């Protein structure tokens, strides 16, 4: 087992250590007979994905052109065909547009804070000391928790009679029983804090992995030559950490964009849709108001949006070997 330290060898498919990962010793005839074998191996995975992801995606296209609602008591393929009206309506649906903007803001804020905290914290973990393992174990505890339970904990922390309000009361010296979760703007704070609290550890571990694999010689040389810490960080660490940070930000952005569990547990998008993220908006639309066709159209827009952003982002990352 070779422990490759190169960050993101995942993309140089099969290139392995010295290209020895694919069978070199097979004759031509054997190679020809290989084809059914290797295809057979990917079939179970491929069929499962087809059944659960590709077929539904095709259905979503049909649904998005219909006005199907389960309450109409007709099967979905009999929904009224209304051409592109769903998309037209969505364009003028403030609640939808707001949820998109809100989600993008949540992604921007959470990722920035997570990255800043993770970078700062990882710097402190480069050296060794005797209780370092314990410290790492405790710091990464949040990411081990079921997301629903993390939200559950924050639900209690930010309760109007919870410990957060108690702390604030102690600081300002008067009773403070603000109900965070029912305020249209402030309710976003517990939601984002929950997300940040849970996933900073992952960002931290990724950055730390990158930091630990930095070439120690370069760092020692820079220190010996009298470089300032700030300069070392900017000139040596950041360029070398770039790919790792890129992957971390990309993966966390995609995950944060999907944010649902904390929103559902903490507010369900209430009051009046003021805390709805895209996922929450679509859940409410489809399973509270039962406007399946309309939400299918929204789903299609989001799908196209996400997949094209990801394709655009994954190309430069692939090229950098990340």
């Amino acid at each position, binding site marked *: 087992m070779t422990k490759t330290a190169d960050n993101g060898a995942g993309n140089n498919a099969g290139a392995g250590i010295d290209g020895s990962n694919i069978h070199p010793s097979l004759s031509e005839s054997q190679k020809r007979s290989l084809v059914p074998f290797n295809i057979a191996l990917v079939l179970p995975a491929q069929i499962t994905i087809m059944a659960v992801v590709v077929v539904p995606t095709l259905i979503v296209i049909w649904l998005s052109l219909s006005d199907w609602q389960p309450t109409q008591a007709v099967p979905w393929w009999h929904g009224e065909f209304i051409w592109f009206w769903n998309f037209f309506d969505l364009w003028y649906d403030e609640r939808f547009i707001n949820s998109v903007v809100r989600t993008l803001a949540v992604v921007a804020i959470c990722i920035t804070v997570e990255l800043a905290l993770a970078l700062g914290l990882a710097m402190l973990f480069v050296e060794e000391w005797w209780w370092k393992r314990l410290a790492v174990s405790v710091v990464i505890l949040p990411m081990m928790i079921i997301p629903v339970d993390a939200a559950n904990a924050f639900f209690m922390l930010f309760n109007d009679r919870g410990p957060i309000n108690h702390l604030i009361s102690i600081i300002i010296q008067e009773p403070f029983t603000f109900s965070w979760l029912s305020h249209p703007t402030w309710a976003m704070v517990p939601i984002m804090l929950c997300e940040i609290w849970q996933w900073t550890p992952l960002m931290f571990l990724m950055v730390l992995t990158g930091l630990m694999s930095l070439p120690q010689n370069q760092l020692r040389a820079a220190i010996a030559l009298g470089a300032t810490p700030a300069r070392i960080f900017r000139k040596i660490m950041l360029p070398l950490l770039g790919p790792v940070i890129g992957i971390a930000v990309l993966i966390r952005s995609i995950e944060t964009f999907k944010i649902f569990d904390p929103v559902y547990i903490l507010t369900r998008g209430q009051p009046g849709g003021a805390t709805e993220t895209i*996922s929450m908006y679509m859940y409410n639309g489809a399973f509270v108001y039962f406007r399946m066709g309309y939400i299918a159209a929204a789903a299609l827009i989001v799908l196209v949006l*996400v997949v094209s952003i990801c394709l655009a982002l994954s190309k430069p990352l692939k090229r950098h070997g990340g």
Partner: protein
Amino acid sequence: MNQSFLTTIFKRSIIILAMFFAFFPIYWLFATSIKPFEEWASWPPVWFTDQPTLQNYRIVFFPEAAREFATEQSGSLDYKVSGSAWKAFQDSAIISTFATFFSVLFGTLAAYSIVRYRTGGENYPFQFLTVRMMPPIAVVVPMVALFSVLRIADTYFGMILAYTAFTLPFSIWMIRSFIEETPAELEGAAMIHGMSQLEAFIKITLPLARGGILATALFIFILNWSEFLFALVLTSGDVTTVTLQVANYVSASSGKLYGVQAAMGAISTLPVIFFGYIIQKHLVRGLTFGAVKR
């Protein structure tokens, strides 16, 4: 690096502060789960209870205790959540185990094929990643439609199918990164000596990648156990999961069953914490699809 004693003290204090922040919400969850009813929502809140009780756990697991509690506290609480959490634990265990098994099985086969035979070319593995990129809510609406037609909504089979599909990208990419670390020459040699391709795969590469595949299985189990959105929309009572049960307690009695919801939260998350620490050094590899290794 030689740094002054003060700098070291400063650094360690920040680390202890970070440890405190990471731990506090979890402390609060567990602390609330052993508080008696009077202390659930008292003001000022009770930070350390001096009368710990297991009553909340009894309410979670035993319907008699729940009924007793409901009659005692009637008027102050409208106790809606009936039935025991056993059903949720049992269903979660069944669904997560089977879904993990199929995900890892299919994932291993596909990953092996992708590494050793470059099946589908360079870009083929990326189509699996797209599954993970799309917000699940976007496919949930048509999935509900499809599952109701196939009559597999609210069944174990439907849940296992959905969970298998949505964890496959993780299985394939994580196991792929483990198989990439095994040498191909051994297999080549074995095949020259008359082993079939399948035999070479099962007898040579599989044992070498076993540890990695096991770690992947635990990782996938954690994902399945923690899943919430699919459970929420693809079930309607016959099948339930621990995450649904947590959500039920949070919303029951307009969210005032603090002690009970904390007990359910604490007990449901324990197995996952345990598994998480077992595979701690593989977590980053898993969550980054094998891109960042330790």
